[in-house]
């Protein structure tokens, strides 16, 4: 049952990722990406990481994708604007896709890690309670840094996208 669920989710993830890239219309790309993210969230849930699954949906599907969609709509992009790349580029891109996949897989095969079969010890390590403690004890400094980083990103985004008074 779980096995079947995993394979379905994987198929959805890969398929929607492909469709994200191959869609001519950017809005369609965005929609497919949302699907992709949801399926990844499903993976997380399958792995019993409920908190992460929720955060993933909120951040990626909620925040980031909305931001992208807004930008696309703001720019009013249509299919007609998009000039497709020359065939050579497409072939090269495909070759590269195969190449990088091949190299990664063969790297894995070459190193031949001895993967033991997983045994569930039943220790609680990924409930919200545990993660919260880890995050605010061990990783409190990076946590605060991340907060500062987001603040900076916000200020930066406002600054960059603000219309320049002189040129406008």
């Amino acid at each position: 049952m779980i096995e079947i669920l995993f394979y379905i989710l994987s198929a959805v993830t890969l398929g929607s990722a492909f469709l994200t890239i191959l869609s001519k219309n950017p809005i369609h790309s965005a929609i497919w990406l949302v699907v992709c993210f949801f399926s990844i969230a499903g993976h997380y849930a399958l792995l019993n990481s409920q908190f992460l699954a929720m955060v993933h949906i909120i951040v990626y599907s909620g925040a980031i994708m909305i931001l992208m969609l807004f930008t696309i709509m703001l720019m009013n992009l249509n299919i007609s604007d998009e000039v497709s790349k020359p065939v050579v580029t497409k072939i090269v891109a495909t070759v590269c896709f195969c190449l990088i996949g091949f190299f990664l897989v063969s790297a894995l095969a070459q190193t031949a890690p001895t993967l033991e079969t997983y045994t569930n010890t039943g220790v609680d390590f990924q409930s919200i309670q545990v993660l919260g403690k880890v995050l605010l004890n061990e990783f409190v400094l990076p946590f605060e840094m991340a907060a500062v980083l987001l603040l900076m990103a916000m200020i930066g985004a406002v600054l960059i996208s603000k219309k320049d008074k002189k040129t406008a």
Partner: protein
Amino acid sequence: MEHVLQQIGIDQYIYLSIILFSIGAFGILYRRNAIVMFMSIEIMLNAANLLLVAFSNYHEDANGQVFVFFTMAVAAAEVAIGLAILVAIYRNIGSIDIDKLKNLKG
């Protein structure tokens, strides 16, 4: 309930994220629309995240998931800034076609 890793093994997750990552790289090279390229980058990031979570489960260690949180935070910041830059570019040259951005040429 039996854990998923007991059923399908960690190597399946590795292959999944390899393919997902390769798709992201493919998208970067294949498209010339900057926003879609951005999406490809997000796909690659998610491939890495997925593997991190899988291994976090495998080792029963929370650190891997904490790392994913930070990746998400950085990704959010990156998207915010990146899109702001794209908007600025679009405003300046009226397009976000990556092939038209050739000002780097010396």
